[in-house]
């Protein structure tokens, strides 16, 4: 048991818990209204939105998994950097428009946007359910990140005792999300990000000092891992894999309910646009974090006997905790681990709020109880946020981590299938709700089938055209099928289907 680490860790955890409950009073609003509980009253300015989106998109799992991928696979793991570069032009150009639409009509979720645009509640349901199904394993992976750092402090046990710290953390999370809504993660995100910046800056100073610069760190990595394998013969090989992983992930990111929740909670389109310029600061941090994987290689933490058990239990995900434990004193390791664990709480809270918004607005009010009052809608959301979290917790306790990863992979390629309905609809008037629904089904089916051909282990599927192979991210292939079906069917259906009343613009 690493006591100094544990004491600092628990102290910080208690502090943010207090903050989470106190957040209910911050810019106080009527929390019995869904847009107050679930969107923080749409009042977050540039500064809070920066922390909220940063805390939302750069999660605990990112901090553990991206360096772990670089540690194991080398250059391929760096795709997180181009991925997060490509999201900001999209954020700047597309999402202020969505915000304006949502603000004007009181929309809380992307399902609302779709329903308003096409008047097709089945399409809205498909969009909503996709969001929930894709988000659940994402929450579960946040717990994986938390598990790893708790394990790294020497807290362990058999069976249910071993999961106890995680369960406690989640009860705390559930309680403050219930009472404070989106205000809680917004406030905690500020603390989390300052801790993360502190840790990343400390690591990127201390470790290169130890080696005498970055040169020796890269020199310790096998040359073949430092760049992508150049394709040989009639294939785009690692190049198309890398490019499509970055592009597909970027296109999917803001479709996730939790990203949209953070975007819709900002106070103006200007706040969103300013963040397109300011959020890349996180991408720089992410790039430096990715290099922690190489630092772990250079320090050869994988061969250290004291970390053997950790690597055995958590695989390469243990690379970052091992690196932190080997270069920092216990108390600072505790601070770093707290940063990662709090980094799990923030997105988990936002994700569960986002799912809860869908459950209460789209499913409860849209299908089960159309005459529900605003107060009923908000209380259903609060209860749904609890159910979503319990679901994620059960998932992670009973489902082995590799399966959680596979669900996350599927989640990404399912999520991107709502792009034609949510985004293209903002620009193309000719799309038809039923065509989009069929396109969504085709895209989801094609993507799931492609993933099944790899036994749900790989994110990449190879298609050959004119004798040239394009190994590419499955989500993109499936999206292409989806868009083609949606557009073609919209054209074909036009003479037969009365145009949907344009409800919203």
């Amino acid at each position, binding site marked *: 048991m690493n006591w100094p680490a544990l004491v600092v860790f628990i102290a910080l955890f208690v502090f943010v818990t207090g903050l989470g409950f106190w957040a209910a009073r911050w810019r106080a609003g009527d929390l019995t209204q869904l847009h107050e509980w679930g969107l923080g009253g749409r009042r977050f300015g540039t500064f809070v939105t920066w922390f909220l989106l940063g805390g939302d998109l750069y999660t605990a799992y990112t901090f553990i998994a991206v360096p772990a991928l670089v540690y194991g696979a080398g250059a391929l793991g760096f795709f997180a950097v181009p991925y997060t*570069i490509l999201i900001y032009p999209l954020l*700047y150009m597309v999402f202020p428009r969505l915000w304006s639409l949502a603000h*004007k009509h009181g929309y809380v979720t992307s399902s609302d946007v779709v329903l308003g645009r096409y008047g097709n509640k089945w399409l809205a349901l498909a969009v909503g359910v996709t969001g929930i199904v894709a988000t659940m394993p994402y929450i579960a992976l946040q717990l994986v990140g938390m598990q790893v750092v708790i394990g790294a402090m020497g807290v362990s046990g058999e069976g249910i005792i071993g999961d106890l710290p995680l369960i406690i953390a989640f009860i705390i999370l559930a309680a403050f999300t219930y009472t404070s809504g989106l205000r809680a993660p917004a406030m905690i995100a500020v603390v989390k990000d300052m801790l993360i910046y502190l840790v990343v800056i400390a690591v990127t100073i201390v470790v*290169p000092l130890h080696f005498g610069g970055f040169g020796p760190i890269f020199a310790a990595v096998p040359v073949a891992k430092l760049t992508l394998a*150049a394709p040989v013969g009639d294939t785009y090989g690692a*190049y198309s894999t890398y*490019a499509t992983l970055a592009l597909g992930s970027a296109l999917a990111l803001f479709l996730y309910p939790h990203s949209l929740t953070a975007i819709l909670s900002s106070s103006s*389109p200007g706040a969103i646009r*300013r963040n397109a310029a300011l959020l890349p600061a996180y991408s720089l941090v992410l790039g430096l974090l990715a290099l922690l994987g190489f630092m772990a290689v250079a320090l050869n933490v994988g061969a250290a006997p004291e970390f053997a058990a950790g690597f055995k239990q958590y695989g390469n995900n243990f690379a970052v905790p091992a690196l932190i434990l080997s270069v920092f004193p216990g108390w600072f390791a505790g601070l770093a681990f707290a940063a990662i664990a709090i980094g799990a709480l923030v997105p988990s809270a936002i994700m569960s709020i986002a799912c809860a918004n869908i459950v209460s607005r789209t499913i409860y009010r849209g299908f089960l109880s159309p005459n529900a009052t605003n107060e009923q809608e908000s209380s259903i959301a609060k209860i749904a946020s609890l159910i979503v979290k319990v679901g994620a917790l059960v998932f992670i306790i009973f489902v082995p981590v590799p399966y959680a990863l596979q669900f996350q992979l599927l989640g990404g390629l399912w999520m991107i299938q709502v792009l034609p309905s949510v985004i293209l609809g903002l620009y193309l008037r000719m799309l038809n709700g039923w065509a989009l629904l069929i396109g969504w089904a085709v895209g989801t089916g094609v993507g799931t089938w492609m993933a099944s051909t790899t036994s749900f282990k790989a994110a990449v599927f190879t298609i050959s055209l004119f004798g040239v192979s394009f190994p590419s991210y499955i989500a993109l292939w499936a999206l292409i099928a989806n868009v083609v079906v949606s557009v073609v069917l919209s054209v074909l259906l036009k003479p037969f289907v009365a145009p949907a009343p344009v409800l919203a613009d």
Partner: protein
Amino acid sequence: MATQPGLEPKRHWLRILFVLPFIAMLWVSSYNRLTPELFGFPFYYWYQLLWVVISAAIAGIVYKAEH
């Protein structure tokens, strides 16, 4: 500085600059190499990190032009 909620700013032609990060990042073969190094970083790494800064600058420039 603050914009009216719901009001779209006039789109500026500078938005065309947003194409650049896509070209640069999706053209993987242009940066998949080790040299020249910068501060000990192989080209592959510092070049991609540099584009983080460039794309942030592009967003900042376009914002300034539109507001």
